[in-house]
């Protein structure tokens, strides 16, 4: 009959093994998802949807109501996480900073190549939890397939978006998709004021 110490050791070994297998499985799944993403973005029609509603003029992309809410109200609410996305694996994704990536109204090939470059880097060495700030809805259905979050910001100024999403998701900076240029940082942003915009 095994002693309690033996049982504890066996349990510990099993748990460590399960942890290693979980990590390995997570990495393999991320590789699989990344390969699918690469295929998706290599398709010239990746963002095309043939939507046929006659001569109807497309509707507007409305701003997040949070942009019209007093910062003190937002600050009193719990923060919400941003997922890592399924093409990457990290042991502790919650430790990675939340970075906003601004996607303008780009031509599909430019959008696809920009995303592929960024997400290749993200897959190889996850450096942030990415929150895509989209001026249009065009990238949403593609990025959504891989577990990424898109906040649709229309024409809203980046400063207001940064403050609002900082209060909601802990966003710490906003960069452009194409060049990675820094557009906004929580470290240099003005403190929020109460009066709504």
């Amino acid at each position, binding site marked *: 009959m095994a002693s309690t110490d033996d049982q504890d050791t066996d349990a510990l070994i099993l748990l460590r093994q399960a942890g290693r297998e979980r990590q390995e499985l997570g990495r393999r799944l991320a590789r699989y998802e990344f390969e699918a993403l690469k295929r*998706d973005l290599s*398709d010239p029609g990746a963002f095309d949807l043939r939507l046929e509603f*006659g001569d109807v003029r497309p*509707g507007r992309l409305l701003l997040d109501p*949070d942009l019209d809410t007093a910062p003190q109200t937002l600050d009193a609410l719990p923060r919400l996480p941003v997922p890592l996305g399924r093409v990457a694996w990290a042991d502790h994704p919650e430790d990675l900073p939340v970075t906003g990536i601004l996607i303008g109204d780009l031509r599909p090939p430019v959008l696809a190549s920009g995303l592929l470059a960024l997400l290749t880097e993200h897959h190889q060495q996850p450096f942030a939890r990415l929150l895509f700030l989209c001026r249009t*809805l065009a990238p949403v259905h593609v990025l959504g397939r891989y577990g990424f979050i*898109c906040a649709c910001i229309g024409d809203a100024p980046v400063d207001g978006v940064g403050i609002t999403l900082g209060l*909601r998701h802990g966003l710490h900076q906003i960069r452009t998709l194409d060049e990675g240029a820094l557009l906004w940082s929580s470290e240099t942003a003005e403190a929020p004021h*109460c009066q709504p915009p």
Partner: protein
Amino acid sequence: MTAVTWIDTPEGDPAAGLIAALLPEVRPMPPLAATAPEDTVWFPSHHAFAARAAEFAATPCALHVAVRRGRSLAADAQVLRALADRLAPRVTFHALSPAAATALQALGIDAAPLGTAPTAPPPSDRAVIEPDRDRLLHIRHGVETPLPLTALNWARLARGAVLTAPGDLEPDWHDLAALASRLPSPGDPGRHLLFITPNGVGLGHLTRQLAVLHAMTEPVRATFWSFSRAALIAQAAGHDVLLRHTAEHLGADPSAWQMRETEALATYLRRFRPAAIVTDGSQVEPFLRDAMAQPGCHHARLIWIRRGMWRADADARGLSDVRFCDRVLIPGDLAARADPGATARANPFPPGLSKTRTSAPVVLSPATSPLSRRDARRALGLGFGTGTTCLVSLGGEAFSRTAGVEDRLRQLARKARVTLVWARSPLAAPSDHADDTRQIALYPISPYLAAFDGVISACGYNSFHELMTMTNRPVLFVPTINERLDDQGARARHAASEGWALCFDPEQGHDESAVLRSFLGSLRRAEPVAGRPPGNPTGAAEMAATIQDCIRGNI
């Protein structure tokens, strides 16, 4: 700076909702508010005012305080007079009812009653306040529905029911009931509809909502509060879109997410005041209910599109949400006789505010008329007279769940010399077989059905009804089994039993090769299927008319 009217919102006090209904536009006051001098702040009770009075000592904004008749009023009166002296002339006291104003006058507090005497005849429903049981008892034609005491905005409730306080309750409850009867009439609700689109497995919720919207006979402005990643479709259809995320998308704690979503929706409702909210799903989401209960969010009617064919093992408790709705619209199902779930029986939960109406089946009428075979094939690049072609539309998740079927289908189709054209959902990743597969990503696809000699499809509500009413070509249903979905298997088997279509359901032990071979063989015979239900079902138009009636107040 624009002047803002703030209201303090102590939890569980229905007075805030009633007072907000008297004000043109109001915002909930955040903790530690930095109000501007031109702002106005309302307190629904003098207790709430006393708790925060110090915050406003330095800011010269206008303060309005509802003085409530409680047990401690005589003692409170002295403090209130002192506070009024200190903050004069900025403070105005109000009473909730004429009776309360008289009582306060006797204590030396000048407080005019809020609201005005009603001029319209009272509604026929009643809502009896039962605070000891933490509920209201809604009564319509003798049918009683218990409602949690503060789950609904009382200003919304008062639109359709007379609130009454039994004689033994404290005066404050009588004052609240009196104030509920003294609210202004709602006026023109406008033509703005807010559609809540859940994050479905496929496009079913969105398609049904678009079908109803496009059947409206009067112009409306629609906004989609879309949890669906296919929001682009609603935008392309001409409607405004707000893209939202579920707790599942974010990996968020559901209660934290719900607080955020409630706040966001309440902000929207206060600002844009839609005439109705139309939600489609298996329940009224708690964030929606909570947002509508917030002060200033009482304007909209709540309409729930709830289709049937719930799985037999589905949790039926969501059916109790009818009590919070103004209308429950059930889209008819041609396979209703095979419905195995709770939706096949009478709802065991009382109706509350709602009336339920079942319509004919709902299908999306495309903007363009159905194309001829020649035009449809040309438009899809299929050529004309180049052999037998079959559309395969297995929905967002079906590729992964039916991977085995997919491979077998390819083999048998090659043998039978049938060209497969795969309809790719915008929610789905491209097939692994992208190199040798003809795919189309097109919405809506129904105008092009004549291009195909047959269809292999999942059996969700919309696909089923479109195919059974819009084409006479052979159809093979491959139901998707998912606990989040309706019982597609039951629907598909019903279609098979009626002779409308073939059904391949792996869970029923069907012989895959035999079914596929038989179906593909039938395509080459090019014989139309007789006996299907008639086309042009009117469900969308019926629902649209009901929504328009509801907005106009014809409850």
